[in-house]
């Protein structure tokens, strides 16, 4: 009891929430790369962009919620993760529109 650890395990729950989010990002990335893989240069470029966004989000989100003490909250990570999600969506729109051309 003297550790000052939150009995509600909020830092741990938050860490798992970040990990779940990364897992979802990974699924979206796999779907985007699959959609992009038609062998043409544009598709390869968009697939590459998707993988870069995935890597950036991985590096950005992995440290979040580590540790069990009064955790780091806020910062710029949340808007940056949102920006990454919006970029993934827009790359997806490009992929869909490419299929029309």
């Amino acid at each position: 009891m003297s550790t000052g650890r939150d009995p509600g395990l909020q830092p741990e729950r938050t860490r798992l929430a970040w990990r779940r989010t990364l897992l979802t990002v990974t699924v979206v990335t796999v779907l985007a790369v699959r959609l992009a893989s038609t062998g043409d240069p544009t598709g390869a470029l968009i697939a590459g962009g998707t993988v870069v966004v995935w890597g950036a989000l991985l590096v950005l989100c992995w440290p979040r919620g580590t540790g069990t003490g009064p955790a780091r909250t806020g910062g710029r990570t949340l808007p940056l993760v949102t920006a990454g999600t919006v970029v993934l969506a827009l790359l997806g729109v490009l992929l869909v529109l490419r299929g029309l051309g």
Partner: protein
Amino acid sequence: MWEAIRRWFDPAERGSVGETPDYRFSLANERTFLAWLRTGLALVGGGLAAAQFLPPLPMSHLREVIAVALLLLGAAVAIRAVDHWARTERAIRLGQELPASRFPAILALAVGVGALLLVGAVLLRAVGGR
């Protein structure tokens, strides 16, 4: 609008109003944001799946319209998530009421209407396709 976007990226300004709350409140707010972000990501994933797994539909480009609508809805959900997170954080720091929002109701209605339309399409196909 640009002012709001600048504020999302400025932790120093966010920390300058009100008092620092119990960190667990901030963590709870962060988890709510993440749940919304995953909702947005699921819509993006749904759009990407629709684009590649739906069979060609009777109406031309309907598949692409569905995919782009889901992708843009996902982006909107993500942007709204960070905005709501920032406003909630501010309200917690100032000891104010948490911001109310119609967005969950609107999104639920949109998803419900979309699902009903799909049920209609499937039934129509089952009846007319024979």
